[in-house]
């Protein structure tokens, strides 16, 4: 067990280093921050001098070592654009993204599992077929189009739900402000969460359905039937549990993608999270902000992967036995 965790940790660190290298290298190529930091009308001398002070003239390897060293300490420097420490800004914005990702993940997961199980059990029912086809519509349109259509319908035409932002927030800790505790906050969450979760919902639903169909064909389900167990016990006690095991892995990765795909949703709904921060950073070539975001995403992925592995470990008795050396 310990060996397993250590091995995974080492792998994770290797992944993180690679990502750091990639994101660092990338920004050696992209845009020039100086132009954004100084106004359009600054003179050439001003620019050269700022470049020198930011260390942009140092050899690349030195810049990288400095970068990794600082990153480990959570120091990604000062945002070129906001003139504030990147890590502080990200910590302020992260709760918004996590809240959105969490709610849309929950939406995708619960509805995805319910619909997946339903369509698997009623494989040839008209409602199942309808759900299966309708779900494809959701993945056949780009997210931004869906978001704009939702805004048009629910915000502009019906005026039921807000078109942007997080609504009223409640301060919980210094950095964490939540919209979940106010009505306007919850209302503001609905459209972005649906927009963001729709794609994952379809994926999870289809995955659950396929897995469930596979499981329902296994011998142990047949044997359970032959023992006269009730339909419910077979579907939900025996089949569902086995179905959800592989779903955990995929869903974990999906949760990571949700955070990344939030870039689009946050842009459409002006959701003040890290995705919007990233897009703004790209436009302003705010290199410290961009690299911090990339590393953050990779970090979240690595953490989710670790958690998924451990969860799998706890849930699946076969793995547990293997890794702990059996009886």
């Amino acid at each position: 067990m310990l060996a397993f965790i250590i091995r995974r940790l080492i792998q994770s660190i290797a992944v993180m280093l690679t990502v750091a290298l990639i994101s660092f290298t990338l920004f050696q190529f992209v845009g020039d921050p100086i132009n954004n930091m100084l106004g359009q009308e600054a003179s050439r001398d001003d620019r050269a001098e700022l470049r020198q002070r930011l260390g942009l003239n140092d050899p690349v390897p030195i810049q990288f070592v400095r970068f990794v060293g600082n990153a480990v300490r959570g120091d990604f420097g000062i945002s070129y654009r906001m003139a504030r420490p990147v890590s502080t800004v990200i910590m302020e914005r992260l709760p918004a993204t996590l809240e959105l990702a969490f709610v849309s993940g929950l939406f995708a997961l619960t509805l995805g599992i319910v619909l997946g199980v339903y369509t698997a059990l009623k494989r040839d029912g008209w409602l199942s077929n309808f759900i299966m086809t309708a779900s494809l519509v959701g993945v056949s349109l780009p997210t931004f189009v869906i978001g704009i259509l939702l805004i048009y319908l629910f915000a502009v035409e019906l005026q039921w739900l807000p078109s942007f932002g997080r609504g009223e927030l409640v301060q919980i800790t210094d950095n964490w402000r939540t919209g979940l505790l106010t009505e306007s906050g919850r209302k503001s969450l609905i459209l972005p969460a649906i927009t963001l979760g729709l794609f994952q919902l379809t994926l999870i639903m289809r995955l659950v359905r396929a897995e469930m169909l596979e499981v329902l064909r296994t011998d142990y389900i047949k044997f359970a039937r032959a023992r006269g167990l009730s339909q419910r016990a077979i579907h939900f006690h025996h089949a569902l549990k086995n179905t959800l095991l592989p779903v955990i892995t995929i869903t974990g990765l999906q949760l990571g993608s949700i955070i990344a795909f939030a870039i689009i949703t946050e842009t459409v709904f002006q959701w003040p999270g890290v995705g919007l921060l990233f897009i703004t950073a790209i436009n302003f070539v705010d290199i410290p902000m961009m690299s911090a975001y990339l590393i953050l995403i990779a970090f979240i992925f690595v953490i989710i992967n670790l958690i998924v592995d451990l969860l799998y470990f706890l849930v699946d008795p076969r793995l547990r036995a293997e890794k702990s050396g059996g009886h």
Partner: protein
Amino acid sequence: MADTLLSVKDLVVEFPHRRGNLRALDQISFNIDRGEILGVVGESGAGKSLTGAAIIGLLEPPGHVAGGSIELDGRRIDNISAAEMRKIRGRKIGMVFQDPLTSLNPILTIADQLIETIQVHLKMSDKEARKQAIKLLDDVGIPAASKRIDDYPHQFSGGMRQRVVIALALAGEPELIVADEPTTALDVSVQAQIIDVLKNTCKEHGAAVMLVTHDMGVIAETCDRVAVMYAGRLAEIGPVREVIKHPKHPYTIGLMGSIPSLAHQVDRLVQIPGSMPRLDNIPTGCAFNPRCNKVFDRCRTERPDLIAVEGNLAACWLHAEEATA
């Protein structure tokens, strides 16, 4: 004569197919008495397993019973509702599958699966059910049953798992166990043990057994009677000694002749030229007629019914005159 537990009459099972219905079982008739062990033997695809599945009501759709009847304790069970059938499965008829490695749910403990099954059929408290479960495991020969009961399936060897499967099949105290090739997937060294366990525990629990197998040796040692199937039809049925010593159907004769020693298995009849016809291509008359060395005209046009010959029943026109004589 002991009383009849199961009575199968003219059972027909069909699979709809775009080239017409395929008859997988064609007018099968036989009885099983209480406490009796009936062996069912035949080549792959002869319909042995299908017969078992039809009895317990677990035909894979689109397969379905298209004719005849199945009676348990004098009550028809082939046309009852799914809910009623569920009450019979496990409680009246238990089933043992071929592969113990896949028959057990990998993520539930043995206790979970056993207790759940017991409580579905018998009114028992958790504590009683657990006691009963341990007893069942004891019965099927699991050492240290009270400790091992909380293990997961993967912690048992193949043979041990099949014992667990037998325990599970017996958990609802059924009167009939359908054992579908219960030893095929197992290591040769434990096959005999498992057959013993099956035979003895069923006897102790008063359950009759329908034992589907390839293994004539097992049939000879274990069964009271044996049924021989060919191309979805019953070729011959009778007491085990009679069928082995004095087979009446040319197919059975070939079958017995092909076995140098009884310990051998019958997978393919090397001594009879040709192979079993496919379901969409069964000849008219006797299904065996293209391969039969005693074939005559009637065999090619008219399908023989089971005819009583010296204590056996055989579906062969060779015996038609004897019977009527």
